[in-house]
């Protein structure tokens, strides 16, 4: 069986769904970062696949941008996470409610 565009898109969708569930269900801040990485990479897979399908490099360049931004986001996020842990001794999301309106 030839692996075509649809297979990649299905994979991307499944990954995205997993990420989305992770974002909604996870209570650990670190694992929440994992979930967002899954989300971003699901999109990257779709970008790369569609780019290859059309023979247009723009999509792959976009994927590189996403990777770069994801990397910096994680760097900043992990920094904040460490500060938060040092201060509160916990990275549980339910304890993180100082913005309650």
């Amino acid at each position, binding site marked *: 069986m030839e692996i075509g565009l649809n297979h990649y898109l299905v994979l991307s969708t499944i990954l995205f769904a997993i990420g989305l569930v992770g974002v909604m269900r996870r209570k650990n801040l670190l694992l929440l970062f994992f979930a967002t990485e899954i989300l971003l990479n699901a999109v990257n897979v779709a970008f790369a696949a569609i780019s290859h399908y059309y023979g247009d490099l723009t999509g792959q360049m976009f994927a590189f941008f996403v990777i770069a931004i994801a990397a910096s986001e994680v760097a900043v996020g992990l920094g904040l996470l460490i500060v938060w842990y040092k201060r509160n001794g916990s990275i549980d999301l339910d304890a993180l409610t100082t913005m*309650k309106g």
Partner: protein
Amino acid sequence: MEKYLYIALFAPLVSSLFSSLFTATPKKLFTGIMASLLIFTSLVSSTILLMYILKGGEPIHVTMMTWMATGDLYIPFGFVVDQISVTMMMVVTLVSTVVHVYAIGYMDHDKGFNRFFAWLSAFVFSMMILVMSDNYAGLFIGWEGVGLCSWGLIGFWFHKESATWAANEAFIMNRIADLGMLIGLFLIYWNTGTLQYDGAFAAFHQLPTDTLTWIGVFLFIGAMGKSAQFPLHTWLADAMEGPTPVSALIHAATMVTAGVYLVIRSHELYSLIPHVGLFIASLGTFVALFAASMALVNRDMKRVIAYSTLSQLGYMFAAAGLGAYWVALFHLMAHAGFKALLFLGAGNVMHSMHDELDPFKMGGLKKVMKGTWIMMVVGSLALAGVIPFAGFFSKDTILEAAYSGNHMVIYGVLLFTAGLTAFYSFRLVALIFHGEERYKLFGIHPHEAYRFMLWAMSPLLLVAIGAGILQTPFFDMVEEALNAHEYHIAHGTALIMLVGTQMFVGLAILYAYKKYANSRVTVPDGTSKMENSFAYKLLINQYYIPYAYEEYLVKPYRELSEVFWQKVDLKIVDATVDGIAGIIYSTGEKTRVMQSGNLSTMLKWMVAGLVGLLSLAVIFGLAARYSDEILTFLSALGV
């Protein structure tokens, strides 16, 4: 010459702006001096312009700039100095110079000294615009400007409830009349396509009489408000709450004569509609008598003079209505002089009596206030029309005009009023300056006013004495501009009329002296027979007109407003606005719980939102793609 026109016009504005810089600071003498000097500059420029016009110079007409130009409507800021406006400019600047200098002394101890000069000069500027404008729109700007300044000056002592009330009354009553004036202006523009005097006057000749009548009537309604003619007269007497220099300048000499000026300025209109003119003359005659009768018994010095102003305005309207425009203008000029003199004299008396206004509590002030006494007597003689003082020439000519026009009723009433005028003015003089020194009972120590205040008044004294000799040159000047003509009455008749009038006036003066200048006069306490008579009560209560206005106009209006406030405003307008606000507020209150601050919950909401938006996009996308099928399906259902 244009240079002098601009100086005369803008010096008062500069003065006002300069003084207004110091309104929030304590009294500074130099604001008063500076303001007086600037107004004096304006007087000098006006005099130069008068000399130029007297020598037969062409009227000066300048267009400073365009104010409005849209479509066919073109209104410039244009100014004209002709025989009529130069007379008014002289009156305005002369009286206001005197009043400015006088006020330096009068407002000496007042906290609002600087503010007073700012308002007073602003008034002069507005008045100059009013008389110098070359179109009705400019006149209207000045008209509203003097109304505003009058409001500010009547209510100058705004901490007094009665003063603010009087200021509002004057302002509101003038607004009612101004509506009439505006309608008049709209009619002029509608029918002639211009508001420029020369253009409109030229076009009036082609208009039907009906239209002209309406224009004339509505313009006169405006004049009635400003000049306090019946039934809009009540504000003038109440306006005496303001400082006395204000009464002298605004409510005697200048602003209240603006209505007369309007009629004189529009004489080309009114000479086409003599029936409206006759109405104006009749109303003026009525007001002359009506106001004089109220002045007979009033116990407030300033109000008596205010009623006499009203009465003299009636004379002016009588003259203007009968087509004797130049006589009206001449009487306006003479009246401005002697009436301002009387008011300023009354101001001196008030000052020395510690703001006491009841002449019955004065008496015998002649000994301490010699200068003021002379001024008041001369002013009263001029007002009464005794030969050879100013009022004689102007008032006698009005009588002649009425007589030679065969308006015997008007003539008779005006003649009778002349007697009343003489009586009440000398009643006032006798009560204040002669007889027993009744003020001693009240522990007052009167003193004469500052010497410079008396000097400041002296130009007005000269006008009151000698304005009569100006009659011939004045006539020659305005003859062409106002289509003036002399009134010729057979020599014998004229002599009899002259002697008769003078004797009548003389007798009235003697009677006033006999009745009020003796030692038996006491402060009335409401028990004497006269005070309980019906006529006295009618007159002292001003024919119950203020009472009737209060009872039958103000109170129903207030009740109506109450209903509208409770029913319409609160129940409909407010309720709608409050309802909208309430919905938004409660929505916020309900959805506040979403902001739990828990990141997990918020992310769930975000996902829910994303899913919602995506499904919307999908639905609309599908609907757009299959729109034809959907339409077919719907039409099959019969929609």
